């Protein structure tokens, strides 16, 4: 900072905009709390969900679907190889899916390997207990987060894209910046960029509600109470397929999210999600 600057500035002028190196308050407590609750519940839901999938590793479209019916996706294997069948595609996945070696060195032919599932061994009843407990932890705090973020204007202030941001040229430039790993610095880094906004909005208002609603559609009890669920997703087996696809989209989001945290400075990013305080990255000198 220049030592003589304050003397020259008039007293009633607004403070200078934050610059690289400044600490800004970036995440309020509801956002931070919800983030970490979600980190836990989505992690458990994903892995217990993979265990539940292992019980019947086939997906269908429509109202019914069982072993005699056509499955659009199948994960399986035998003693020689594992593969994923998607429509006419036969993708070899030996060593990963449908044919993998467990910690005792034995070949297993379940769809997802034990390191990816909760519980790690085949246990459908246990996985369902985990899944339905953490489904509550996703659902109730999720509703509260929605309500609080509407009230404290988090959605309006931090997540709603501006008209300029939605211009295709702006979005394209942000895509190019991301691809070149050029991240905003200084004041620009205080707010979410457009790709962040769009992906967070998609998770909060599209993917997570879809997970909850397709999950409920698979419940024979809920289908009696809320039969519109089945109309919405065109049948229970379609809902099950969508549940799986959206889970994979969420997994994709998490992987990219973690990659971005690592690239953008993991200590600063993680600290800001714990304390709320974020150090604006300094502008890089050319």
């Amino acid at each position, binding site marked *: 900072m220049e030592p003589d600057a304050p003397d020259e500035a008039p007293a009633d002028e607004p403070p200078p905009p934050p610059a690289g190196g400044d600490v800004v308050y970036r995440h309020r407590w509801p956002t931070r709390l919800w983030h970490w609750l979600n980190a836990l519940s989505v992690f458990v839901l994903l892995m217990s969900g993979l265990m539940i999938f292992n019980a019947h590793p086939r997906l*269908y479209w429509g*109202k019914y679907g069982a072993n005699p019916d056509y499955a659009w996706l199948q994960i399986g294997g035998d003693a020689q190889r594992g593969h994923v069948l998607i429509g006419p595609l036969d993708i070899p996945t030996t060593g990963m899916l449908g044919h993998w070696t467990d910690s005792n060195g034995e070949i297993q032919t379940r769809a997802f390997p034990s390191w990816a599932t909760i519980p790690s061994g085949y246990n459908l009843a246990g996985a369902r*207990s*985990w899944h339905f*407990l953490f489904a509550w932890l996703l659902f109730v705090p999720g509703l509260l987060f929605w309500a609080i973020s509407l009230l404290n204007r988090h959605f309006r202030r931090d997540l709603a894209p501006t008209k300029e941001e939605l211009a295709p040229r702006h979005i394209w430039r942000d895509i190019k910046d991301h691809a070149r790993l050029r991240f905003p610095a200084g004041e620009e880094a205080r707010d979410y960029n457009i790709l962040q906004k769009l992906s967070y909005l998609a998770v909060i208002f599209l993917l997570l509600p879809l997970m909850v609603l397709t999950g409920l559609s698979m419940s*024979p009890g809920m289908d009696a109470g809320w039969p519109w669920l089945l109309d919405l997703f065109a049948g229970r087996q379609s809902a*099950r397929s969508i549940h799986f696809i959206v889970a994979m989209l969420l997994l994709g989001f998490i992987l990219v999210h973690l990659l971005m945290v690592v690239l953008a400075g993991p200590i600063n990013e993680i600290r800001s999600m714990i304390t709320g305080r974020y150090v604006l990255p300094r502008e890089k000198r050319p």
Partner: protein
Amino acid sequence: MTDRLTRRQALVSLGTGGLLLSGCDRIGRSPAFQSVQSGAERLTMRAQRLVIDRTALAPEFSAADLSPVFRTNGNAMPASPAYRTHLESGFAHWRLAIDGLVSRPLSLSLAQIRRLPARTQITRHDCVEGWSAIGKWTGVPLKLLLDGAGLRREARYIVFHCADDFSGMPYYESIDLIDAFHPQTILAWGMNDRVLPVGHGAPLRLRLERQLGYKQAKFVMRVEAVDSLDRIGLGKGGFWEDNSGYQWYAGI
């Protein structure tokens, strides 16, 4: 044996970054965590009972929606010699007992049951594993049988004792009175316009359309009204509940 295996797995996974996972397995086995899980199970049941009217019907489908092949599951043929004898004689001497906390215990032949008013419904069968099949079921509403036997005031659950077993442990299931008196809860003797096949539970199986497949007891021999599930089987209300930890309320 299981514990030794998991300890070894835990040691192996220590090196491979799987510590967190074995942690989950250990948490999953702890009684405190399991009681949290069963708390969530009760919460799920209460929440569903709150939003689903007690007489709300499970979706019914048209004949065009029927599964071309309705796969069998669980036991496709009970091992007991008594059942084989009944099967060979076309269930001519088979009788369904309705007893327990009732004023007038009943013993009904299959012919008598088929003469009672029947309900036919095309519904979806959802296995806990994830698959679904749509079938057409014809049978007597359980309510008619319970009213005929006169349920006593203390009765809280209806238990279905079955002819099949897994390694000598007889299959059974239980439901509460809300489900027992639901209009779609029937003891089916017909499937897809034919006599109920052995693989699907001949001569009589429960249809409980708002819960999963494992609740739909096949080969039903006896219907018992009880005030508590504690003295039945291992006390959790069903074969899978007792032996594999499946949820008693299978509405989800």
